[in-house]
């Protein structure tokens, strides 16, 4: 039955990243028995919630969910309230509080807004694991302002080995950028009146460009530890490095590639005259060669 999950994952890699939530819901509807496999393997945009006790925003995902309730990293309370909701041990909670404060600073420095949340949990083998969540949304105030969203999910596991700790990090970034443009024809009319060959009364146009993507990368590293707070500086450095790398990849490689593909479809330059020129050149070279 692994086949079925593979097909679902293949499908999710093909369908638009902008419709991930809707498509995951549909897949779970078709195969409810595979809900856990699917939710465990496909990252979805993070949900923003407000901590009732502190009024601070936090991010909800599978890692801070117990039943229908979500735990806030700020107050450690579940909403809706749970009497026996899973919470970290006091020691781990202390580290979780510190990690939330550190990544809140990270968020402010890189995102200048948005929300962050860190959740930690103990592992059976004595180590612990955690997830660092970051989300920022740009909401346009007018029709032609750009909009977009960034969601990143960093899941890590760590095991201490003497004065070293081994970290395994899996990072997913989901990104969406939307630009809307429109023109009433006024500027075009002016341009066309001033020396347009065609004498057309001007195009009216309106359009939207949407670039969206999701990608996942993994890394494993060893870092020295002095005390438990070293786990925050270590994962902090790893996550910062990873986000810089993934942001760069998305902007330079992935988005750059989609732009190049547009030029593989259509050429701004006249291909026919280019072809004629090449033929002419060949002919000239041929004639010169005969002399």
């Amino acid at each position, binding site marked *: 039955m692994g086949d079925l999950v593979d097909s679902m994952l293949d499908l999710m890699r*093909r*369908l638009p990243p902008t419709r991930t939530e809707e498509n995951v819901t549909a897949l779970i509807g078709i195969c409810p028995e595979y809900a856990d496999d699917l939710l465990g393997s496909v990252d979805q945009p993070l949900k923003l919630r407000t901590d009732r006790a502190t009024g601070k925003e936090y991010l909800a995902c599978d890692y801070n969910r117990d039943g229908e309730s979500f735990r806030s990293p700020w107050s450690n309370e579940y909403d809706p309230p749970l009497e026996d909701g899973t919470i970290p041990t006091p020691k781990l909670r202390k580290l979780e509080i*510190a990690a939330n404060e550190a990544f809140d600073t990270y968020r402010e420095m890189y995102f200048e807004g948005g929300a962050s949340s860190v959740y930690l949990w103990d592992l059976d083998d004595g180590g612990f694991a955690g997830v660092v969540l970051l989300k920022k949304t740009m909401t346009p105030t007018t029709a032609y302002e750009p909009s977009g969203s960034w969601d990143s999910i960093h899941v890590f596991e760590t095991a201490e080995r003497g004065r070293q700790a081994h970290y395994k990090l899996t990072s997913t970034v989901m990104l969406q950028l939307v630009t809307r443009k429109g023109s009433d024809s006024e500027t075009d009319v002016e341009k066309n009146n001033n020396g347009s060959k065609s004498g057309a009364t001007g195009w009216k*146009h309106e359009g939207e460009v949407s*670039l969206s993507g999701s990608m996942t990368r993994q890394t494993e590293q060893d870092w020295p530890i002095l005390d438990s707070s070293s786990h925050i*500086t270590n994962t902090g450095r790893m996550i910062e490095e990873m986000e810089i790398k993934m942001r760069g990849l998305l902007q330079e490689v992935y988005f750059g590639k989609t732009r190049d593909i*547009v030029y593989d479809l259509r050429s701004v330059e006249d291909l026919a005259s280019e072809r004629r020129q090449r033929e002419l050149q060949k002919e000239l070279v041929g004639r010169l060669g005969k002399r």
Partner: protein
Amino acid sequence: MNATERIEAACSFLLQSPPGEINDVLNDVRNIISDDDSLHEGVLPALKEYNLTQFMTVDVPGTDHQARFLFDYARPIPANATEGGQERFVDPRSKTSFLFDHLSLEASDSQPAEPDADSEPFRAALEKATLTYLEAHFHDGVASIFSSKQSTNQFIMQVVANKYNPANYWAGRWRSEYTIDLNENTVSGKVLVNVHYYEQGNVQLSTTHTISLSLPTAIVTSSPSSSASKILALIEDEEGKYQTSLNDTYQEMGEKTFKGLRRALPLTRQKIDWDKVLGYKLGAELASSKGMFGGS
């Protein structure tokens, strides 16, 4: 989910297929639904819709060209011509009609199809001008021009260019459609571009661009061939501008929007000093609890 809802979900997946990946999506969907009998019947309308809205092309039997097919603007079709997944379409360029299979994407049973005498001269002129435009700007383009069933002075022009490169995990599709209305003297249409790049990720570009233009009377009153090439010159100019503006949009998105979401580096232009971040936030309390997770 009941059987109907499952088919509805399957149809929705198919209609979201990126360029050139409809068969991959169909294979996944077959595996997931695992009921070929109900699936085959159920998704046929979605496949038809996909073929029409995504400007699928077909090799026209007995010709060396491909064509777009457009049901709505084809000549009236005898009721018995539609059977199973097959429908009869007209290729005005070769003046033939053919049966098209929406599942196999193949054409067969080609028959002569007489064009409408009144609209054919202008349609043929538009076709000639469009094919010249296609040669000039598209790497693998296909175009078809249809005269409207509703009016002799209305024409539909469709252009599609596809590039599929599954070995390198990318595919792209450019679609243009224009309605040229010589009663209203207008050209209106849209350009749609879809690109999928999925090497170790899933990145998609999706653009829509709708345009409209009033034609000057000078263009409309000249001979079919002269007015058709003038109309195509206008389209060439507008599509060229659009493609260039798309480049600017990329630039803008990279510099403004992307930066507005997440900076490449903090304002300090340096990576974060994590020891400091922790130092600011924490007292000695946490730092002193050495080895609290044991040295296992």
